[in-house]
């Protein structure tokens, strides 16, 4: 909504047509003689070598899967193997063009892609750099294997090829000497020092992540491009389409330059579709898609159609030709770009695939067109090399592959994780628990004004940082430093400290976020650090993952927690899992802010903490006071783990009612994982999650005043991790606990807490822990909310019905056990 761009009704209704430029289809037509001007003999031979290496690697895996034997080596591999026999020319052609600082993100059929990029990088790195990389990676664990057992390891580049093949194969076989200690596996192998970034078992999952890596390059002025590989099947997925759109946003070239102050380059990303015509068994051409050509798609996203074209993926030289041109466009600031690389998978989707969806004739026809022998014949015919020279390469590759598989299946050399001897190995990498103030200390953060001059900073300076005056009277809300301010302070401080920090989401800039947390950031930050994202939750969260993986720190926002579903895969499979799947190599400094609504009905009022808490790998916060909001946000922003930061719209304007000294102006942290006693008591404990804290306190006051019952109120503050000690201590004292929150009762975090407290403090309990969440309904209109969300009277009802009948008490709601049995029977 930049005011500089006027939407003119006079122009909006003008008649006319949308013109499309033609999209080239397989227009490569260079002769081998022309190519000889570009490539040396060794270049030509290297292309053959790399394709042949991939073919042998995939053949080996296929034999192992199908026959449990490859060249006399017996092995059984129960894990997946999504092979790409037939697609080698596409992968090698692409990788040929890429430099070390070009990032590649792959699909779930990515063995060929990672080997091609690895071999390309090995060729481009000098021997010293190469050796250092191998020596440093996992403290030389992989190098030791490939170097140590060989009498004559050969040249550094030979050693590096062993290193690459072994690291990938050991990973596929789940060995601790794999690139990710066996925690990634076949579909997730990657090796960042060679520019090989995480591949994804979720079809199309890598597209928004690759976008995020490109955003990192774009926002931090880093060299190189990002290639987002996917199959044609992935084009049916929303996150891919969202990423295409996000990368194409007008603002990147029209607004981010800010009148020449900053670069106005387009997003340096190449969306590369390896079109093999099948998404597993569904045929995209003629059955599950209507586009005929994937290259048609980008015409819908930008006037330039992302410079799309289709190229023959069975000809490595055609792929190199096209990819080189796309890369040039990106480096010239004309991104994003799109390439359809038409290819074919001769092997099945997996070795269990009996190809019922295609005819033997079709497969045979493609085998006849096999790119590797075709390329070899072409080079022999052009007199570039003799057939024997290719035979020698073949032999070397087979020998290397046999050598590598023998190493990779040797349990002594390539052990699996021993979780009986080291039971904490996986536990220890679920979180990185880092403490990094700035992800890049080599440069100053780009800002528009000194922090002190920011209008919001000035406004906050006049606000009361404690909610009550000397007489104990509540200060008027307009003069109170509130939760919004606490969040803002932590965030703006980080922007002025860490140059990589960026924030985006829907309506963030100008508007200041739908709930005004970001008001004042627009004045302080350039566009490329703080911008409005399209309404694309998958791309918002997915790109944050890529941004972090590439080395930056991102704060992204979902306007309502209800939209978590729109970013489901990105939160549940990507944000949460990559630290552990990388064996701790990757860090994920991302804060995902989600706001919990009220008054806005069934799709805008849900507390979905349970969904996020259920997924291993995420940290989950839900503060309810300005002090906690700022302290938790500070720690989240200083950390290296993904934090889902729940905020409640009910209490954004709450002042600080607990810390008498007020919310500190300077830096401090609240430990993620520590609940906080907000009110001491001795008869019953109320454990609250989020905004319900204030209703719990009201209930506690009433219990004290009317019934002489002293309630202790504990604010959970964080749900994952969670230190039970304070709660157990309280339960030992009171013997009774009710856990309250605005989430629906069924399968809530409250239920999880109750179950754990029962186990941990059984002998101290005077009644089973009671849970009081919202009803298992849709959220009704605001006027009816008191029948849905927990209210103070309801909390007392539950205490009366389930913990300690209060003499003379008359319940307001029906929270009896009989009623609960009836409700459960009906599923409500």
């Amino acid at each position: 909504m930049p005011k500089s761009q006027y939407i003119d009704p006079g122009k909006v209704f003008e008649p006319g047509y949308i013109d499309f430029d033609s999209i080239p289809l397989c227009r490569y037509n260079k002769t081998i003689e022309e190519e000889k001007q570009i490539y040396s003999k060794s270049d030509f031979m290297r292309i053959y070598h790399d394709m042949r290496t991939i073919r042998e690697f995939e053949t080996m895996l296929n034999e192992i899967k199908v026959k449990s034997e490859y060249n006399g080596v017996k092995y059984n591999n129960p894990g997946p193997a999504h092979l790409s026999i037939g697609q080698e020319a596409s992968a090698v052609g692409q990788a040929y063009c890429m430099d070390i600082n070009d990032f590649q993100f792959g699909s779930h059929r990515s063995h060929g892609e990672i080997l091609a990029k690895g071999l390309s990088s090995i060729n481009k790195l000098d021997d010293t750099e190469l050796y250092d990389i191998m020596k440093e990676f996992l403290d030389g664990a992989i190098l030791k294997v490939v170097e140590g057992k060989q009498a004559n390891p050969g040249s550094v580049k030979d050693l590096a090829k062993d290193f690459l093949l072994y690291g990938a194969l050991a990973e596929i076989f789940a060995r601790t000497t794999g690139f990710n200690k066996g925690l990634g596996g076949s579909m997730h192998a990657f090796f960042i020092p060679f520019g090989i970034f995480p591949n994804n078992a979720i079809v199309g999952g890598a597209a928004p992540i690759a976008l995020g890596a490109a955003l990192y390059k774009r926002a931090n002025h880093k060299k190189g491009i990002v290639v987002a590989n996917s199959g044609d099947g992935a084009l049916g997925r929303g996150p891919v389409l969202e990423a295409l759109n996000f990368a194409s946003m007008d603002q990147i070239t029209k607004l981010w330059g800010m009148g020449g102050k900053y670069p106005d380059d387009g997003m340096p990303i190449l969306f590369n579709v390896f079109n093999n015509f099948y998404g597993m068994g569904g045929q995209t051409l003629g059955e599950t898609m209507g586009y005929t050509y994937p290259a048609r798609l980008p015409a819908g996203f930008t006037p330039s159609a992302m410079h799309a074209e289709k190229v023959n993926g069975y000809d490595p030289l055609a792929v190199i030709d096209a990819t080189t041109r796309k890369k040039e466009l990106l480096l010239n600031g004309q991104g994003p770009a799109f390439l359809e690389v038409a290819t074919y998978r001769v092997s099945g989707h997996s070795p269990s695939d009996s190809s019922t969806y295609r005819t033997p004739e079709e497969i045979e026809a493609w085998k006849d067109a096999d790119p590797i022998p075709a390329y070899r014949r072409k080079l022999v015919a052009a007199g570039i090399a003799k057939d024997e020279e290719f035979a020698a390469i073949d032999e070397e590759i087979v020998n290397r592959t046999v050598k590598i598989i023998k190493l990779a299946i040797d349990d002594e050399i390539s052990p699996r994780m021993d979780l009986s001897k080291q039971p904490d190995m996986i536990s220890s990498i679920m979180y990185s628990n880092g403490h990094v103030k700035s992800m890049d200390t080599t440069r100053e953060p780009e800002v528009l004004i000194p922090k002190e001059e920011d209008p919001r900073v000035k406004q906050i300076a006049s606000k009361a940082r404690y909610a009550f005056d000397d007489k104990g009277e509540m200060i008027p809300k307009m003069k109170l430093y509130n939760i919004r301010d606490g969040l803002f302070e932590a965030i703006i401080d980080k922007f002025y400290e860490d140059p990589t920090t960026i924030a985006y989401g829907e309506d963030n800039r100008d508007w200041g976020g739908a709930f005004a947390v970001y008001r004042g950031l627009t004045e302080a930050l350039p566009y490329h650090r703080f911008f409005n994202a399209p309404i694309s939750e998958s791309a918002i969260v997915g790109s944050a993952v890529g941004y972090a993986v590439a080395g930056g720190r991102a704060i992204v926002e979902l306007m309502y927690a209800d939209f978590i579903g729109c970013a489901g895969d990105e939160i549940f499979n990507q944000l949460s899992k990559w630290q552990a799947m990388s064996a701790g190599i990757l860090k994920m400094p991302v804060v995902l802010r989600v706001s919990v609504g009220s008054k806005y009905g069934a799709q805008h009022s849900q507390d979905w903490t349970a969904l996020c808490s259920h997924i291993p790998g995420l940290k989950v916060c839900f503060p309810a006071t300005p002090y906690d909001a700022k302290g938790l946000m500070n720690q989240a922003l200083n950390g290296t783990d993904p934090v889902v930061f729940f905020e409640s719209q009910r209490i954004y304007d709450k002042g600080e009612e607990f810390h008498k000294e007020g919310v500190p102006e300077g830096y401090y942290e609240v430990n993620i994982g520590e609940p906080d006693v907000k009110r001491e008591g001795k008869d019953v404990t109320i454990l609250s999650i989020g905004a319900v804290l204030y209703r719990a306190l009201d209930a506690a006051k009433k219990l004290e005043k009317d019934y002489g019952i002293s309630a202790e109120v504990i604010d959970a503050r964080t749900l994952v991790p969670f230190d039970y000690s304070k709660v157990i201590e309280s339960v030992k004292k009171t013997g009774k606990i009710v856990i309250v929150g605005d989430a629906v009762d069924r399968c809530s975090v409250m239920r999880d807490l109750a179950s754990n407290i029962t186990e941990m403090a059984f002998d101290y309990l005077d009644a089973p822990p009671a849970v009081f969440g919202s009803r298992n309904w849709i959220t009704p209109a605001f006027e009816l909310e008191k029948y849905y969300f927990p209210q103070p009277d309801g909390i007392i009802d539950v205490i009366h019905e389930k913990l300690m009948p209060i003499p003379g008490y008359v319940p307001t709601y029906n929270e009896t056990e009989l009623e609960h049995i009836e409700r459960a029977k009906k599923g409500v």
Partner: protein
Amino acid sequence: MANIVIMPRQGQSVESCIITAWQKKKGDRVEIGDILFSYETDKSAFDEPAQVAGTLLAVLAEEGDVIPCLDPVCVIGEPGEDISALIAKKDDAAEAAAPAAEEKAAPAQEAEPTATESTGERIFISPRARRLSLETGVDLTKVKPTGPHGRIIERDVDKALDLGYTATTAAVESFLAGKPMPAEEPEAAKAEQQPAQAAPAAAAVAADDLLAYDEEPMSAVRKAIAKAMCASLSEMAQLTLNTSFDATNLLAYRAKLKAAGEELGLSKITINDMVLFAVSRVLPKFPEINANLVNGAFRKFRHANIGMAVDTDRGLLVPVLFGAEKLSLADLSALAKAKAAKAREGKLTPDEMHGGSFTVSNLGSLGVESFTPVINPPETAILGVCATVNRVKADGSVYPAMGLSLTFDHRAVDGAPAAKFLKELSTALENFDLLLAK
């Protein structure tokens, strides 16, 4: 509507109580909290306050009557109210109960096993209340459940403890396991019924004046003492060691307290208090003596919980001085006096008499020079304090010698350690001023 007041059940082991006095009479106005009547169990005396206001419409039992627990005792209602139905019900209940009582009387001797049989009823009690019960030895039969589903919760146990309802831990465990509290009542109940049957026989021979006597039923306290003493002697291997010590120092110190202690409030400290004090300091060094022996296991107490035998109108009562080893002489003396006074007034609660680790009995003031005190089960020893007599030393000098008689359970303690205990106690008493300095 009229309300029946029943005889409260003061513990699973109590089947009936004696009404000792009516504080209200028929027709009296009664307010909530007014004492209706006083009654006694074999261990303690209680007052029953009114739970409702109204007029005492009917008194269903006389002073001295033994009333089974939970049976009606009186009726409170509004004047003129028809309570015949209520009383009739009571009569029905009595009639119905009578044959049952007779039946019970006959096979009572062989009815013992029922005590160990499961009652088949689950006890609904929260884990916390269960834990607290075991820790405190609350008499669970006295606990009124107020939790959800009639569950016993912590506050219910607390309330019963406040009212002084305790039992042994073993009894609580047994009750929680679904068995009745280990019952003493069948015996007691039998004993109660005997005088009733014997009375007519006594009347038949009353013609002969020379053989005339006044029959008086054993009081509940007497019965309890009888039972405990018989059990003590029949179940333990008791023997007594006698010794004496030179009480010169002790008596001198006592004289000093008496003379100079007035203004310090120390003049009331007795010889017995001083002996208790010495015992409290020596006892912790002899864990097998500062112990209970229960079901083949020693309970070696961490504190010196010294029972103090007190002679009362009702009979011998033994209040416990808990944690005596931590008390100063003055505090111990004050506590002993307070407990003795409560014992004489019949105000001791059961838990004030439960949990002793050792007992001291003093017959010295009555001139007894040596005796064989009987151990208070399940303790393992008891000290008798005897009179002071003058003895002559080898050099012809005379000194006051105070006698000590230690009875111990040879199952638990051997002669030598028991003798060592006596020796160390004698030394402590002989050097009482030094003991105080420790």
